[in-house]
């Protein structure tokens, strides 16, 4: 073998070398994510300065928190004793002391178990709607929950909500009786007409009669005694529950070929979307009496809920209309080709897809609705943000306390709104059927 002509061939692999210091680990990450260019470097420094400024401003105040005190002056005394004169600290004692008021407003204190029970049952009722792994039988409870919740919150005779629910049973019975005799359309008319007649003329006397025979009643609570988070939740959840179906109906009306239905829907939606919610709430509190028969006294929370429902429904209608418009024309034509009638096509083909597209918009409308429940303070109801906080501040003990109530109420709202938006993301990814 001639050594002079043989080429050098390495027979073993070189050991792996560590990457350059700037291309590995934390240094690489910092280079790529924080200082990839001059502008990025400046932004990073600015961002860190802003965060540091906020933390330095707030952290000492937060770290000097007092949880047990009877008044603001006592709170300040404790802070001065513990951390020296002249320093400021957070006085969360106001939340601790006024906790029931923040939750229940001026609801009678010996009846607190009722809103608590109503809230627990609400969770039970909402769970099967949100998570489809739960048994479907639970939906029956969800259906009767509005009556249960109403009775627990407002009290009064049990027969009032029972008779209200009976209206639906009567409607169902009307369909069962009329349909074999007179066909679907007359049955539908009967199903609408019979419960309405029942609620208008018979439900009240029937409830009174049953109450006199079998008196079961809870102590009544007036709407003006509601306040704090039960008020926000009552208005918020009722609004959410009722605005979705109404919004879908309005969207269908707006997409309809029927001239009059279409124009009525458009007019309603554009009117509601064109005025601020506050003016609608004022209308509900000041002007509704002008439009009702003389002598009618209408519950203020109910009025507010109606306005909130109408308001949110108009927005949902626009969101759902967007979903309907995004569906390819072929879906409608396919439904027609299968011979489905309008409602079957909507129920089986159009709506499942349109609603799926509209989920983000619908949920952000719901979040907006929940946040807007704070506006009821302007019609004299005690919302947790301004109504209750002003009431707390009106007492001599807590005069001059500002930040703690705002931070507390803001945190609760954030928790629920953020939760809703995360749930909508979960729902979107769960319902996703395209393969991208």
């Amino acid at each position: 073998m001639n050594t002079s002509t043989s080429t050098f061939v390495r027979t073993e692999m070189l050991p792996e070398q560590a990457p350059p210091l700037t291309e590995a680990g934390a240094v690489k990450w910092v280079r790529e994510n924080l200082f990839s260019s001059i502008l990025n470097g400046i932004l990073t420094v600015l961002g860190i300065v802003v965060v540091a400024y906020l933390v330095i401003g707030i952290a000492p105040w937060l770290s000097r928190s007092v949880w047990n005190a009877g008044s603001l002056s006592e709170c300040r005394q404790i802070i001065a004793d513990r951390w020296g004169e002249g320093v400021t600290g957070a006085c969360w004692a106001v939340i601790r002391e006024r906790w029931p008021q923040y939750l229940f407003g001026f609801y009678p204190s010996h009846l607190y178990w009722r809103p608590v029970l109503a809230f627990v049952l609400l969770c039970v009722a909402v769970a099967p709607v949100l998570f489809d792994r739960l048994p479907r039988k639970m939906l029956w409870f969800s259906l009767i929950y509005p009556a249960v919740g109403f009775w627990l919150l407002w009290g009064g005779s049990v027969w009032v909500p029972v008779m209200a629910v009976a209206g639906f049973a009567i409607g169902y019975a009307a369909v069962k009786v009329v349909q074999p005799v007179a066909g679907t359309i007359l049955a539908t008319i009967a199903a609408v007409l019979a419960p309405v007649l029942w609620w208008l003329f018979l439900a009240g006397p029937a409830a009174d009669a049953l109450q006199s025979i079998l008196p079961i009643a809870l102590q009544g609570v007036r709407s003006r005694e509601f306040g704090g988070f039960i008020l926000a939740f009552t208005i918020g959840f009722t609004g959410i529950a009722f605005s979705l179906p109404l919004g879908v109906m309005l969207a269908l009306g707006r997409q309809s070929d029927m001239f009059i239905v279409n124009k009525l829907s458009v007019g309603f939606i554009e009117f509601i979307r064109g005025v601020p919610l506050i003016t609608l709430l004022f209308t509900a509190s000041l002007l509704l009496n002008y439009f009702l028969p003389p002598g009618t006294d209408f519950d203020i929370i109910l009025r507010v809920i109606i306005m909130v429902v109408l308001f949110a429904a108009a927005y949902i209608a626009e969101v759902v209309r967007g979903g309907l418009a995004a569906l390819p024309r072929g879906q409608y034509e396919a439904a027609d080709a299968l011979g489905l009638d309008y409602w079957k096509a909507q129920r089986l083909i159009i709506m499942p897809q349109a609603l799926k597209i509209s989920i983000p918009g619908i949920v952000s409308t719901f979040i907006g609705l929940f946040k807007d429940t704070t506006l009821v303070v302007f019609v004299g109801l005690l919302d947790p943000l301004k109504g209750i906080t002003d009431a707390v501040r009106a007492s001599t003990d807590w005069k001059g306390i500002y930040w703690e109530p705002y931070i507390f109420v803001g945190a609760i709202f954030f928790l629920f709104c953020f939760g809703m938006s995360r749930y909508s993301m979960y729902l979107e990814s769960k319902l996703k059927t395209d393969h991208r």
Partner: protein
Amino acid sequence: MAVVTEEPKAGFRLGMLIYDTRYRSITIQIVVLMLVMLGVAWLIDNLLSNLAALGRGIDFGFLWNRAGYDINQTLVEYTNDSTHARATLVGLLNTLLIAFLGCIAATVVGVIAGVLRLSNNWVIARLMTVYVEIFRNIPLLLWILMIYTIFTEAFPAPNAFRGDTPAASMVMFDTVAFTNRYTAIPWPMFDRSLGWLPLGPLWLNLDLAAIVAALVGGFLLNRFILRRATRIQEATGDRPTTWWQCTLALFGPIFLVLLALGTHLDSPSLQGFNFTGGLQVSNSLVALWLALTLYTAAFIAEIVRAGINAISRGQSEAAFALGLRPGRTMNLIILPQALRVIIPPLISQYLNLTKNSSLAIAVGYMDLRGTLGGITLNQTGRGLEAMMLLMLIYLIVSLLISSAMNVYNNSVKLKER
């Protein structure tokens, strides 16, 4: 094979109104119309009988009575001897002012936040996410109250700026002072002011008109120069240098007008216990403006982010492959497509901001709701008329904003051929 076609039965039966698709929609519409009209008639009947019971009718005459209350911030001349109609006008202008300022600031902040949220800078992207999520998920009312409280509680009184070692100091090179009652800012003053031109109930500020005219003129001139450059480029292939012409066209007229008017900035200064000079903006306006801006900007940031995300990566890659520089890629490829996605939801955010400005009630800023829907309503007791007028005005403002923005939307819309 014989085809048996059954002759359609002639004549019209009542059942066809329901079972025949040709007539069914008409039946449904007539029924709906009748129900709606019945409902409306019922409401109007109730209204009339209620009004009759109260012994009054619908009368807008109260608008011409003396208002008798003061408004702390007015854009047009107003005293407490003016009429309620005048107070309504003042309120409307205040609403439009806050809406205008808020829309501009929210757009700027929102676009910056939305773009930064997409940045590959870890710190900035996280920071913007936190900002957007916090502001989106907490009621606007809380932000308004909180910022207003910061102004009234955390800022010093004007007299804290006094003395040799004052407890408080002005910011921005001694030109802006935040106090617990107002914010004093510098304001342009004109030595050779053109005065006012009376136009019916409104007075036109000729200085402002001249400045606006100069701005618009400069803008139009700039557009003309750019169009001409494009025309020459299309004809000859060479684009003439335009940057100095454009700069001159944009800034020249306004500079000349400001010079001719003898403009100088009047900075606030402390005289005794209070600031004089400059402009004192009430804290209610500043707090409301800041809160509306930050709140709406969080929504706009999400819209901008979604709009940019909606443009597929292939578009920018194709632009780079064509040899376009990043700036031109943004201007010519990404932005025109992203705007198409961004504009429609942006319109509804502007509308929301305008409507949300009615929360001014929380901080005592006298907007339309504070004057017409507040003091006027309470003083005259004409709730029905005042609320109807209030809703009508809001409706008109909303429709005007949305139609103006729709015109713009149509100009950037995808032109399909």
